């Protein structure tokens, strides 16, 4: 067993779990933050992407124990006061989601990109998203949404 202290979405938590518990399991099963999804078992699909200390990681490929002492942000922590984050708003505006299952991971990945590259080109967006699979949108509108979301983030909106 392991005792893990971490902050999730700005709130401190202590989790008692098996040492084998993955970060995604700690989030979904222990904290009931089910916005972070699991779509594969080989670290490819990216549906489980969250931020650990500000960087996008696949929470299915990280032990909860490795997140001890870190600050984690999940999709549930992105909107503030019921107001959508600019990236969330851009996904809606540009129809960047259909079934919604890959969306949380896609958005967490995209916000990491736009923090590093405030105005990414289409090419940069498409390559950055290599770690996120979507089966619904053909990525066309996701790419548009990410670039629009980047503009929203630049505007501090």
């Amino acid at each position, binding site marked *: 067993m392991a005792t893990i202290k971490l902050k999730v979405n700005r709130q401190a938590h202590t989790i008692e779990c*098996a040492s*084998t518990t993955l970060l995604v399991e700690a989030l*979904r099963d222990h904290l*009931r*933050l*089910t*916005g*972070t*999804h*699991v*779509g*594969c*078992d*080989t670290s*490819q*699909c990216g*549906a489980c992407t969250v931020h650990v200390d500000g960087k996008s990681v696949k929470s299915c490929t990280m032990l909860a124990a490795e997140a001890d002492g870190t600050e984690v942000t*999940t*999709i*549930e922590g*992105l*909107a503030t006061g019921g107001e*959508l984050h600019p990236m*969330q708003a851009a*996904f*809606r*505006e540009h*129809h960047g*989601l*259909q*079934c*919604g*299952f*890959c*969306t*949380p991971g896609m*958005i967490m990945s995209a916000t990491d990109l736009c923090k590093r590259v405030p105005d990414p080109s*289409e090419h940069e*967006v*498409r*390559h950055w*998203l*290599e770690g*996120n*699979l*979507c*089966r*619904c*949108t*053909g*990525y*066309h*509108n*996701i*790419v548009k949404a990410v670039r629009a979301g980047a503009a929203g983030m630049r505007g501090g909106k």
Partner: protein
Amino acid sequence: MTTNQGIGAAVLRKEDRRFLMGKGQYVDDMVLPNQTYAAFVRSMYAHAKIRRVDTTAALAAPGVVAVFTGDDIAADGLGGLPCGWLIKNKDGSPMVEPAHPALAQGKVRHVGDPVAMVIATSKAEARAAVGLVEIDYDVLPAIGLLADGVKPGAVLVHDEAKGNLCYDWHIGDPAATDAAFAKAAHVVELDLTNNRLAPNPIEPRAAIGVYDIAADHHTLYTTSQNPHVIRLLMGAFTLHVPEHKLRVVAPDVGGGFGSKIFHYAEELMVTWAAKKVGRPVKWTADRSEAFMSDAHGRDHISHARLALDAGGKILGLQVSTLANLGAYLSTFGSSVPTYLYATLLSGPYDMPTIYAEVKAVFTNTVPVDAYRGAGRPEAAYLLERLMDKAARQLGVDRIELRRRNLIRPEQFPYQTAVALQYDTGNYQATLELALKQIDHASYDQRKAESAKRGKLRGFGISTYIEACGIAPSAIAGALGARAGLYEAATVRVNPTGSVTIFTGTHSHGQGHETTFAQIVADKLGMPVDNVDVVHGDTDRILFGMGTYGSRSAAVGGSALIKALDKVIDKGKKIAAHLLEASAGDIEFKDGTYRVIGTDKVKAFGEIAFTAYVPHNYPIETLEPGLEESAYYDPKNFTYPGGCHLVEVEIDPETGVPEVVEVAIADDVGTIINPMIVDGQAHGGLAQGIGQALYEEVRYDAEGQLTNGSFMDYCMPRAADLPNFKVGNHVTACTHNPLGVKGVGECGAIGVPPAVINAIIDALTPLGVTDISMPATPEKIWRAIQAAKANKGA
């Protein structure tokens, strides 16, 4: 319209907010009190006799609540998974329908075939105990490849299916087709494989069974595209509980693409086991499990011949197809290579005669069933490859050959040689629009520019048709369908005028919560925010057949229109009473009832309130309340179609192909929400390009699945695809009230042959004449090498 949110408006989606905030409720997100976790013991062999299953060690493992085997479900009389469409052989005899038990009994027939179910108090304990179930197998030779299934002396997957044939079916007129070939100036022949695909919605399947002992009532939460169909099949065939004792809920579902239509063993088992163990039972597939248990798509081998006259006009078509059904008949597996494939072989072309034969084959592989397009992509691929080959053989331009053969607008309704009657379309218009969108006039400049960079550029075209909203029930029934093909809707007007609608269709990405609200907004003249759309729950919705085959708007939307018309009509009677006029003198427009030609009006909200607070009401002749239901059974299929154009660049050194331009023009009928329609096209195109370039489920000859993970099965990523230019030319469907045709599958149907045709076009100067799907870099490189060697020889 008092709002700009009706039919035709690009309304932003109502459902998005919950998905964007991580507040969707998918099956795996649900946690029920006291729930247990199921894991399945699956066969690692493609074909084996089960000598003995020993559950002793597993039962003794920590946390294990129960272990069930095929014997347990047999003892309880659990029914096998049924097939929903009876196909008849050429001689009129019925197809072979081998038993498909939810847990294997006596034999396993594919890798992943479930043998036992372990239930434990945690997911980890259930998975750990899976390894403790001891199974003694007697391994048998297996059929891993379709072509091997029909070889003389092949091992039998089912003893009762001689030659591994499920059926040997045909359609069309063989004599007339022979005659057409006899007088043909040109005969074009082609052998083709349509590659096997894994649907891979990003949400894996999941199910939770719940049993309420006090009410003797079952609930199943499941990742389904059609919960009522699942309830029907479980009630009548598998679980044998009456429908009022079974509720099936499909909450938020993370994509389906066909693979979540079917009734699967796991959802049956959790429902059954929940009663056995007295606790909720939850199961969620991991991706590896999905690869070996979700129904796959496609997997055809065909030989095709096209007869043309000297002027390049098509005289007839002959097709002979082997279709892989996998180890068992999946729910609609039998219908895909017959009524959803061979009936489409006329394509958008005026074709006097067709004869097609289909042999459906059992193999030791996962069952094959409908996947986005389902039969129609196979037909389109075959025809469009043939058309290109014909153009090369005849020395006619590919676009020109299509122009000579497309059905002309004045020929509608057009009766094909393979049973269907197309109601409307304008294939010339979509062809011209697509050519304009891709700026085909300046193609040569782009080709020259590619050449400067050392790339071979190719142009590919596909003019296609599909059939959606499969119907009418009576005709489908006569052809072997074992279900109705109508749809149901209820419109509940709440007392203060807001509206809740209940639809039997299911949205798992299609945006029904928005588009169906738009239909209501359009008809009743209210904002979409005043409309809630309920779907996916058999206890809340009167009935429904669900969402598949691009049917939701065409069939479900039509049912909704019918129910709305009933609401409006009843409202007229109430308005007539209030306005002291006759109902015949009342018109309803923009949310207002009016005595025609006067300024005497009543708002819709007032009528709704009066219906529920009937103080001044024609109570002698009219019931209170304002809620209406309707069923709609279509008169015909709808026939979307269009033209898909692709430009590729090939790196001749490595063989790497890149799709650099995609421009399409579809005719999907009336468009309810252009933003959503374009999004559907995008997704279909990605899957179609996936089939053409990236995707293929590979089995070896022994039936081992060799690429059952995202490490090996190549899913298209953002960097693998270009932007898409999507255009529409609308001809309204003539036989449904909305004029809609359906858009869900167009991309997956039209684009694969356009991609392959573009690759062959790029390589034609080198002497390459054929490339199979998926066109991998190595295949292209090898084709180039072989062509070079040929030229040298």
